[in-house]
């Protein structure tokens, strides 16, 4: 092989790997990312049943109902709209009524959000960052309003817990 051929082989190989990687990324980005919505955004966007998204908002006071076999249902609200959520499994340690929550799943034909993952991913204000940002944008919530009063300097000592739906055999 001449010097020129060797150089071309190397460059060609590098470009081929880059092209493969770019193709994989574009393919994955189109199929496997999940959008975040509040109940109001979900209503405005008319999200089709079966399309996965992340729902964030406040768990409505008094809406938590525990059924048989660890089934639970609750309502998520952003002040303007409310969505019923059904979930089966163990809720995270920090899941509480009146506080923020993020759930991942899809709407069923009846308009109930069937969650397979419930995240209580938040700091000491019991407010997930996504939810706080979304609610702030809608003017529904100000820093330090929910949960405990905001402590001086160390406002955010976040704790992440997650519950995942298990297979009930």
């Amino acid at each position, binding site marked *: 092989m001449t010097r020129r051929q060797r150089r071309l082989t190397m460059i060609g190989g590098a470009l081929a790997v880059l092209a493969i990687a770019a193709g994989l990324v574009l393919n994955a*980005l189109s199929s496997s990312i*999940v959008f*975040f919505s509040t109940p109001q955004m979900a209503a405005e966007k008319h999200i089709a049943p079966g399309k996965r998204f992340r729902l964030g908002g406040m768990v409505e006071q008094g809406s938590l109902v525990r059924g048989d076999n660890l089934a639970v249902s609750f309502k998520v609200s952003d002040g303007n709209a409310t969505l019923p959520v059904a979930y089966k499994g163990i809720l995270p340690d920090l899941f509480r009524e009146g506080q923020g929550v993020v759930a*991942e799943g899809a709407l069923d034909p009846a308009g109930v959000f069937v969650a397979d993952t419930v995240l209580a991913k938040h700091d000491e204000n019991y407010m997930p960052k996504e939810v706080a940002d979304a609610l702030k944008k809608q003017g529904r919530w100000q820093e330090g309003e929910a949960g405990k009063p905001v402590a001086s300097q160390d*406002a955010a000592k976040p704790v*992440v817990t997650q519950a*995942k739906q298990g297979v009930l055999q």
Partner: protein
Amino acid sequence: MIAEAGHYAMVLALALALIQSTVPILGARLRDPALMNVARSTALTQLLFCGLSFLALVTLHVTSDFSVANVFENSHSTKPLLYKITGVWGNHEGSMLLWVSILALFGGLVAAFGNNLPLSLRAHVLAVQGWIASAFYIFILLTSNPFLRLVPPPMEGRDLNPVLQDIGLAVHPPMLYLGYVGFSIAFSFAVAALIEGRIDAAWARWVRPWTLVAWIFLTLGLAMGSYWAYYELGWGGWWFWDPVENASLMPWLSGTALLHSAVVMEKRNALKVWTVLLAILTFSLSLLGTFLVRSGVLTSVHTFASDPARGVFILAILVFFIGGGLALYAWRAPSLKQGGLFAPISREGALVFNNLFLTAACATVFIGTLYPLALEMLTGEKISVGAPFFNLTFGPLFIPLLLLAPLGPMMAWKRGDLLGVAQRVIGAAGLAVIAIAATFALTSGGPVLAPFGIGLAVFSMAGALTDLTERLALFKGSFATTLARARGLPRSVWGTGVAHFGLGVSLLGIVCASTWGTERIVSLKPGASVSLSSYDLTFDGMVERQGGNYRELIARFTVRQGGDVVGTMEPAKRSFQTRQMSTTEAALLTRGFSQLYLSLGDPEPDGAIAVRVYHKPLVLLIWLGALVMFIGGALSLSDRRLRIGAPKPAARPADKPSMQPAE
């Protein structure tokens, strides 16, 4: 007193770092050995003062001096001693102090052991270390001073986040930082080479041990973090593709690439410009990791505080060093002497292949981690990129790497014989095929891809062993020859074999635990049982217990297999009074390399409790594999060649072609 002394020591360390970052460069310009040697003494004294500052903070935490804000916010007088010490870096200020202390440690090590480095190179390397150190000292002193006092001093502290009150905090952050910060040495060497405009095989030989040190600690830190998340967070997973995890995976990937490309440079004096770029990129990714975790851009257990001023400051440091490093590279790299080209089918070619795929895999992780942040900043749209994305991108790019890992070390330098190498791995390939067939037979109707994953893992392991056995003439020569060869074989060859074997071990664990793991969530009353895999778990009842700074509710379980008791498990829920937080403590029962995993949900009013039970087959192999990789790296590090250091580069006129070290 101690707090003020610690603060003062840090100011002195900053002053020394500022001298270290300027005077030696001036010395190198003027070719003045005395000025260049200032680098050595300032690096050592800077380490001393930074160390004193760190010790001061440790002392404050151990003695529970709540008049210091940092201690008040993160400690409590009833906290066990171990957590008083580890709590030092269980918060933003302290963890930044640990970061610079380790930076100072590495600078001090270069100063102490870099006697065989050319004087000007050592001066430049330590000066660049001084820049990084200065930036972070200023950051700490201006935005994150851990020594601030509170007036009036409170009586009691607010305790450490209960999730962090674990032995993992003693190991994971220091290991991870040793890795992150260790790559700063490779960065400093790269920048020094660019400033000097001279780079050769000897340079690679100096850089390699430092990169190896960083890499082995990062490997251990990653594995430790993963195991900690697995048992502490209570949801049974060991890797979540969380941005914070990705932030530490990216430097590992590019650091692994750097390790391999430095070999090519050392042996064949090729890939120089690329190696320098990788060194800059690897430390840039470490800085990016520090930024993502420390700036509060992400919310996770790792983000201790979200003060926007800090984020902006770290971003400025990030832009300065990454931008500066890359700009210097763009400006000076063309002037570096290009190395030789080589045949695609050769050891060098295989290592280039490794580099291409590792960096491509690293790039996909980079995109998956930063794309959501960029999109949110540009459009306000919030998305989450999770496991599905990485399975579709990172996974396929890693398969060719694993396939080639056994072949590479068998390939000859300069011109390899692909057919010959293929014949040598035929045994390993045969084993892999048998493993695939056996897995298919045993798990009929299971997932289709998993048996191939097992095959790939077996191929990696058997291939690594094949190379070692051939080199040792095991089963061929007499036992004495084998022993003699084993002694004569360079440690770096052992290291390669062992580390590649570890890769296969981890893969085996990953495939088994994620494919054949089983999980059940049930609500149990005392006396009731749940069965999973071949085990029966009986819930015996609940007990309450008072711990040091928490109360815990323990659920007792007896585990039986085929009627015989094989162990008891005691998952618990702890509630910490000071922070009014509760944590779930999972219980683990290890059977061989497999584990039973039990974590508690909420107790119900009728005395029943929700439990989540997992059976994780061969899950321990995931971390054992990483441990094996660590051992491989350590073996390689103990290689005689690296210990005695690089030979003095031949003084040669600039117009001669660069020297090709004999292999």
